[in-house]
C-alpha cells in the first residue's frame, strides 16, 4: 500500500487550471523528483498535500485513509512537512522563532502559557547542528545569507517525526557545498524511511538523489517513471513538450 495516494487531484484558481487531474502515489523510503517548467503546477500540487490549498476535485489518501485537511497544522499532525519555495520566513524574528513558527513551545497551564524561548533556542540549535549549518538560533533572519535562510526553512521539517517531506526548490539559492548538504539530508531522510518529494529545476540534483521522477506540464502529469529508466534528455523533452508523454 502506498504511503500517500492522490486520486485525480485538480486545483483551479478562478479560470486558471493550475493542477489538472493528477494521480500519483508516494512510497516510504523513496525520493520523488518533481520537475516541470515555471507555472507547471508543481508548487500548487505540493501545497495541496501540505494543507495550504484544498483541492478543487479529487481525493487524497494517507496510508489508506481519506485525508481531509483544512489548515497546514492538519497536515503536520499527519506527519507531512513542507519547505516552501519562498521559504515563508519572517525577517524580524530569530532563526529559532522562525523554525517554531506556528507550533511554538510554551510553558504554563491553561490559558496562561508563555513562550518557552530557552527550549526553542536549545532545540533549534540541535537541529542546525544536525544539518551541519552554521546558523545560530538567536540571529535575526534579516541578517542571514541565502543558505542560512534555507537551513531555517528546512529545519522546520525536522521538528517532529515526519512521514513525508515536501521540498519546493530547496537548492535554488545556495552554494555548491550547501547543495551537497541538502542532497545528503534528503538521502538521510529516505534512509530513515520517509517519503521525500524534491521539486527542482536542476537536472543533476534530481538525477543524483531521486529514485523516481514525475514531470508536469501545464497542470498535467506527463511522466512518472524510475530514474533508472529515464535520462536527462528525455526529462528535458518532457518538460518543454518536445516529448508529449512517457
Amino acid at each position, binding site marked *: 500500500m502506498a504511503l500517500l495516494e492522490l486520486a485525480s487531484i485538480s486545483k483551479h484558481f478562478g479560470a486558471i487550471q493550475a493542477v489538472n487531474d493528477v494521480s500519483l502515489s508516494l512510497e516510504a523510503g523513496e525520493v520523488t523528483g518533481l520537475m516541470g517548467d515555471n507555472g507547471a503546477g508543481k508548487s500548487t500540487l505540493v501545497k495541496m498535500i501540505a*494543507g*495550504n490549498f484544498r483541492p478543487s476535485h479529487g481525493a487524497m489518501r494517507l496510508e489508506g485513509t481519506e485525508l481531509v485537511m483544512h*489548515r*497546514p*497544522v492538519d497536515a*503536520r499532525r499527519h506527519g507531512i512537512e513542507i519547505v*516552501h519555495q*519562498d*521559504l*515563508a*520566513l*519572517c*525577517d*524580524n*524574528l*530569530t532563526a*529559532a*522563532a522562525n523554525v517554531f*513558527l*506556528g507550533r*511554538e513551545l*510554551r510553558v504554563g497551564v491553561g490559558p496562561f*502559557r*508563555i*513562550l518557552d*524561548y530557552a527550549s526553542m*533556542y536549545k532545540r533549534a540549535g540541535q537541529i542546525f547542528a544536525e544539518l551541519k549549518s552554521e546558523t*545560530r538560533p*538567536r*540571529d*535575526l533572519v534579516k541578517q542571514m545569507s541565502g543558505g542560512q535562510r534555507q537551513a531555517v526553512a528546512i529545519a522546520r521539517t525536522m521538528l517532529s517525526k515526519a512521514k513525508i517531506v515536501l521540498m519546493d526548490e530547496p537548492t535554488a539559492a545556495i552554494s555548491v557545498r550547501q547543495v551537497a548538504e541538502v542532497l545528503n539530508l534528503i538521502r538521510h531522510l529516505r534512509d530513515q524511511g520517509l517519503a521525500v518529494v524534491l521539486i527542482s529545476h536542476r537536472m543533476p540534483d534530481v538525477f543524483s538523489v531521486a529514485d523516481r521522477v514525475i514531470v508536469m506540464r501545464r497542470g498535467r502529469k506527463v511522466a512518472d517513471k524510475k530514474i533508472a529508466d529515464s535520462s536527462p534528455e528525455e526529462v528535458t523533452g518532457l518538460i518543454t513538450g518536445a516529448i508529449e508523454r512517457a
Partner: protein
Amino acid sequence: MATNDSSTAAAAGPQSGLRAMRFSVRLESLLVLAVLVVALSILSPYFLSVSNFLNILLATAVIGILGFGATFVIAAAGIDLSLGSVLALSGVLGALSVNALDLPWPVAIVTCLAVGAFCGLINGLLNAKAGIPAFIVTLGMLGVARGLGLVFTNGQPVYGMPDPIVFLGQGRPFGVPMPVFVFIAVAIVAHFVLAYTRFGKYAQVIGDNETAARAMGIRVDRHRIALYMVSGTLAGVAGLLFLARVNAGDPTAGLNYELTAITAAILGGTNLFGGRASVLGTLIGALVMGVLQNGLNLLAVSSFYQQMAIGAVLVLAVWLDQVNRARGQR
C-alpha cells in the same frame, strides 16, 4: 553601527537578536526623553519636582494606554485612527449607564470596556472579512463613533459619577494618582502579552510576512479582528480613565488623541509597516509626548502650537525610522 533596531540590547553581543525582539526600545527615544528632561529642567524652575513628575504621568496615562492599543494594531501592519473617538464614545456611554439608567457603578466600567471592544470588533470585521483597508475602516469609525457620542448626549457632557468612579480618576493612594496605577498595570500586561505570548508574537508575524503567517497556519483574519478588539478595549480603558478624571462623560473628549498615540508608538520603535513592535518603546514614546506637552504648558506655549509640535514629532519619528532602515540595509 546603527542598524534599524539599534536597541539598547543590540549592542550587547551575540544574544542581541532575541532581546532586540523582546525589548526593542529605540535608543533615540530614550535620548530624546533625556534631552527634553534636561532642557526643561534648565528652562523652567517648576519642571523638576515630584509633583510635576506625577502630573506628567497622570497626563501620559490616557495617551499611553491608547498608544499600547496602537502598538498591537501597528505590529500587524494595521492602523487604528478611531482611538480618540472610541475613547469619547465609551466614556459617554459609560457615564450614561450609571447616570441616565441609574445602574450600579461597576456597570460604568463594564460599559466602557464593552463599547471599546465592540467598536474594535466592527473595525476588525470590516478590515479582515470585508477587506476594506484599515486606514479607511478606522477613519470611518473615527467619524461614526464621534458622531454617536454627540448624538447620545446632544453634544453636552454628562456630569456626575458615583464616588468609586471618581476615586478611580481623582483618588491619590500614597500620593500617586489612581490613573497612574492603572497605566502601569496596563503597561505590564501589554508588554507581557506582546513579548511573551503567542498572541503577541503572531501579531508581529502577520505584520512581518502575512504569506508566511498563512503558510504556517496562523488564522490571520481572526487574529486581526482580535487585535482591533484589543485596541478598542484599550480605548475603552482610556475612556473610563478620562471619564473618571473629569467626572463627566464628554463627547468631545480625546479629540486627535489617536495622532499622539500613534506618534508615541512610532517614536518608541514600533515599525509603522508592521513586524516589529514594543510596548516598552511606546511607554517611552508616550512619556516623550507627555513631557513635551507638560514643558510647553510650563513655558506657557499656546495649545495651538502644541498641536503643531505633535504633528511635527510624528513626521520626524517616521523619518528617523526610515533613515535608520536605509542605513541598516546598506
